[in-house]
């Protein structure tokens, strides 16, 4: 079937123009000054106290949200797996379905829940408990991140769990392992590729978001994504914006490298 090689040309050309070249354009802008000369000043702007603080905050919030997503998603995937549904697409459906309500509106709805006069505080009032200050805090942003990206943790973990053959588990039990030991020695290591891709799928979008912090953080919480967005949309300094984007991409590349290391045998096709 060698004659079919040409079928890959549209794809190769498309990805070359719309993926590879744009990356080089960002690199070009990131390393040049307004006039066109080479400079490192765009990159080194990340050490500016304001930028550094927001990068640090972004890292902090995205790591916390990733950890929470993992803690919520792993037991959930075990439960879903234990239900032994014969139709996998049903599981995928219930977690993708929320995406049909616009992402911005869904995040905005959390304002209603977290606000001073929102659902949670009204409920607390009924119980005569003191009101909580939830909206416009880093906590609210973590909430939004966990909410938006949790499905991206659940689906890969569930997928990797459903690939584990029951024979392995039965063999472990036959050889005298109790259920805890079976989990630690068989299920957990075999589900690791799903865990790793889930971590990347949650960490990268959380690290780089500017919308969630916009909606749930007011203007009080500024993440690195907000700073980059402002460079392009309000300040109009593409060089600085590209430089900061390149810094961000270092973190993304780092997590991609970890992903490919763990995902070798599946050739990266099992992220979902």
């Amino acid at each position: 079937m060698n004659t079919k090689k040409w079928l890959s040309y549209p794809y190769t050309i498309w990805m070359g123009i719309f993926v590879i070249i744009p990356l080089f354009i960002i690199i070009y802008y990131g390393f040049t000054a307004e006039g066109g000369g080479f400079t490192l000043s765009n990159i080194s702007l990340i050490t500016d106290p304001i930028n550094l603080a927001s990068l640090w905050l972004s890292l902090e919030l995205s790591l916390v949200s990733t950890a929470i997503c993992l803690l919520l998603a792993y037991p959930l995937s075990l439960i879903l797996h234990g239900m032994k549904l014969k139709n996998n697409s049903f599981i995928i459906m219930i977690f993708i379905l929320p995406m049909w309500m616009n992402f911005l509106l869904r995040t905005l709805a959390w304002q209603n829940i977290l606000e001073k006069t929102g659902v949670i505080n009204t409920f607390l009032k009924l119980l005569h408990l003191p009101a909580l200050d939830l909206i416009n805090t880093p906590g609210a942003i973590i909430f939004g991140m966990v909410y938006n990206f949790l499905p991206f943790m659940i689906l890969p973990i569930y997928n990797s769990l459903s690939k584990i053959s029951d024979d392995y588990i039965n063999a472990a039990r036959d050889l005298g392992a109790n259920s805890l030991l079976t989990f630690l020695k068989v299920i957990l290591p075999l589900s690791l590729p799903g865990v790793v891709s889930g971590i990347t799928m949650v960490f990268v979008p959380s690290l780089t978001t500017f919308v969630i912090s916009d909606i749930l953080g007011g203007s009080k919480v500024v993440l690195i994504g907000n700073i980059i967005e402002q460079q392009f949309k309000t300040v109009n300094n593409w060089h600085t914006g590209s430089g900061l984007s390149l810094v961000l991409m270092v973190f993304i590349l780092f997590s991609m490298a970890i992903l490919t290391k763990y995902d070798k045998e599946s050739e990266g096709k099992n992220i979902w």
Partner: protein
Amino acid sequence: MVKKFFSRFYLGLILLFLYAPIFILIILSFNKSKSRSRWGGFTFTWYHNLFQDEAIMEALRNTLIIALLAAIIASVIGTCACLAISNMKKIPRGILLGISNVPMMNADIVTGISLMLLFIALNYPLSFSSILMSHITFNIPYVILSVMPRLTRQNAIIYEAARDLGATKSYAFFKIILPDIFPGILSGFLLAFTMSLDDFVITYFTKGAGFDTLSTIIYTEVRKGIKPEMYALSTLLFISILILLVLINRKKDKEHGEKPLRNA
């Protein structure tokens, strides 16, 4: 028994967490008061007004056309690529699949910015077609991801057998390969369509002034207050896709029941 109760309870809690904002949006779509935080009584006004609102209808058309075209074109390009890649040697195969990981793993904001810079560098106007091309770009990986696992060595062997028995290339392709990978193409298409519909960040950077999709309208309305018609529209979209997916799933369930016979 206790364990089962706890696991059902936990599943229920997570689903409540995922669907709570959706219930709130549906409730808001029937709220007479324009304020998000006060219940002013039940009304259908917003559903009625929705169809008279030119701006929203226009944005809805744009959103649906872009999502549909992007998903179709991405499905064609992606499926063709999979057919070719599955026959390649390890190294070119790894490179081509690696490229498809880039837009998927990269941050939306970086993808959006880099595409915007590309269009500006080429002096290409930022409007409908720039958004469409950007959406195709981030949709292709989802198609590849869904189609690639379906192309196994098994169907290559059956394809060769069909050829040996005198089937023409296209006959063997349409009778052997396509039916086998079709579910993958369909789920890739649906995934791509959903991602395109839900996208805000990449559209935001690659759109020009004066052109809006639902997401970008909502984003500008976030500060001055969302028009309640938007809640009505999202509710309608959500309910219709819910019905559609339930119908598809029903059909699939029936097919699942028949499958063992066919494979035996």
